[in-house]
């Protein structure tokens, strides 16, 4: 049998289609072919190409695959140059060439069509945000549900004033490119305004140089806007160190020695969360935490008096300031979640009628 096969000829693969790979930075051509009818007897396939403009140049081998494979990507094409491709079946050093493909050239794309869904999501959400913010501008009172941790902020500041002890505000350990840090800066502004009305010292330690500069602006402006710039002290906002646990060590030091009446932990946190929260609890401070770091939430919940969970952190500046524009954006967030819920439920429901909508959610 083997003896016979060697002298038999095999059919090559057919319908070799070459096309520019979509949505890429160029220089790649995707090939697809139909398997040779003798596929199961073959060793595999080799892929050959040649430049069309180079005249009668020979085809050059550029790669190979095992049998049963129907596609290949030539990632070394030169953009704008026309190529022809041939796929050949291989058996014992003998090759059986297919007809050449239609010539094709690769090119980089300027729009990624596989990401239309992300674009649509951004457009819809931006539209909703713009709508609700504009609507809010007209000043109609918007409802916001009670958030226990925020209702306690006033009490926390008052308590510190009574005790004559400072307030410690840790704006998280994330740099300014974490949106949680930006949310924390907004809350810091509101807290600082309340502090400016009382006579309480404030300590804002920072891990990042950029957040330090922002925090300083925010606190200073809060004191100015409350009409008591003279109460602002340069030492309120401090830079500590970028080292995560060096920062945590310094904070525990402040907690044990300055004995703050209230500690705020608001922003992005990592493992150091419990070091700070547990030390603060042992020092007897009243503690309010807020973070979107899912993994640190259990520790704050365990060791702090109040904790803003996840998105509550992002609702906080609207809640505290009651500014219509911010409340409007909260409404947009709610509608965003509503759409997500409807997608989850409807896609699940429809899928049982054999309509699979999941590809809509897929991003390339």
């Amino acid at each position, binding site marked *: 049998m083997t003896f016979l096969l060697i002298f038999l000829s095999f059919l090559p693969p057919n319908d070799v289609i070459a096309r520019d790979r979509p949505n890429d*930075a160029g220089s790649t051509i995707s090939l697809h072919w139909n398997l040779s009818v003798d596929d199961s007897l073959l060793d595999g396939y080799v892929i050959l190409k040649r430049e069309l403009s180079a005249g009668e140049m020979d085809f050059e081998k550029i790669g190979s695959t095992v049998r049963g494979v129907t596609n290949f990507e030539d990632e070394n094409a030169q953009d704008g140059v026309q190529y022809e491709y041939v796929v050949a079946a291989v058996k014992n050093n003998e090759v059986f060439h297919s007809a050449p493909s239609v010539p094709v050239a690769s090119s*980089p*794309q*300027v*729009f990624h069509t596989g990401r239309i869904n992300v*674009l649509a999501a951004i457009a819809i*959400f*931006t539209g909703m*945000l*713009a709508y609700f913010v504009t609507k809010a501008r007209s000043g109609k009172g918007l409802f916001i549900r009670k958030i226990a941790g925020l209702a306690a902020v006033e009490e926390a500041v008052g308590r510190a004033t009574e005790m004559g002890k400072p307030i410690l505000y840790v704006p998280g350990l994330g*740099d300014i490119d974490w*949106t*949680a840090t*930006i*949310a924390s800066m907004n809350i810091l*502004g509101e807290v600082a305004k309340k502090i400016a009305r009382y006579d309480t010292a404030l300590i804002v330690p920072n891990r*990042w*140089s*950029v957040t*330090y*500069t922002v925090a300083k*602006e*925010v606190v200073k402006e*809060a004191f*100015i*806007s409350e009409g008591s710039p003279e109460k602002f002290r340069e*030492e309120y*906002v*401090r*830079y500590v160190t970028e080292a995560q*646990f*060096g920062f*945590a*060590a310094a904070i525990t030091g402040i907690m044990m*020695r300055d004995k703050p009446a209230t500690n705020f932990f608001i922003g992005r946190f990592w493992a150091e969360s*419990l*070091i700070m929260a*547990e*030390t603060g*609890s*042992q020092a007897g401070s009243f503690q309010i935490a807020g973070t*979107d770091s*899912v993994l640190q*939430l*259990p*520790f704050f919940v*365990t*060791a702090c008096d109040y904790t803003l969970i*996840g*998105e509550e*952190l*992002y609702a906080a*500046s609207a809640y505290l300031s009651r500014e219509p524009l*911010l409340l409007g*954006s909260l409404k*947009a*967030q709610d509608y*965003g*979640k509503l759409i*997500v819920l409807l997608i989850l439920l409807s896609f699940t429901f429809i899928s049982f009628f054999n309509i699979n909508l999941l590809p809509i959610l897929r991003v390339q």
Partner: protein
Amino acid sequence: MKRKIPLALCFIMGISMIVQFFIPHPASLEFSSVIYKWIIVLMAFALVLAIGNLIRHHGNKIHRRKEDWQYSIVTLAGMVAMATIGLAWGIDPDSLYQRIYLNVMAPLGGTMFALLAYYMASAAYRSFRARSLEATLLLLSAFIVMIGFMPFGQYLHPRFPAFAEWIMKVPNMASQRGILLGVAFGSIATALKIILGIERSWLGGKE
């Protein structure tokens, strides 16, 4: 102008980074990598300000002989020494700089981190009380996971590890996903408000 220029720059940067996501063209990739290099440079400049603040804070403490001022000397001396060593003799793997890193910073950081083992124990003992339904559920699921992920779990009951795994993978995953989805919207809304100039507390105050 004091507000318009920074706001405009913020808007332009935000929009360009969003647009960049949708353009696979090599020029777009090049753009994003150059900008990232600039961002790092900016961080380095801001660090100069930050270190200035640190020096002033500790310098003040020493100058006014505030409580524990002696320790401020330790901080300043440590910083100057480490910076000098790194800048003067380099940062090769065998350099003094790396040695100090490995034998001073690493043990200090590692031990701070290790304190958490103790704090987890004291925090759990103090606050894991079955006060309400929610608190009881929290306590129970913590217990099941603590048993299930230890090798002795399977001797208590052969299905215990699977149960613990189930808690991690089903209810825990569901709640994490729910929280994450909410956070994503909060986060996106905040980022959008920043780009559109609706949220401008980083500019400080009203005017």
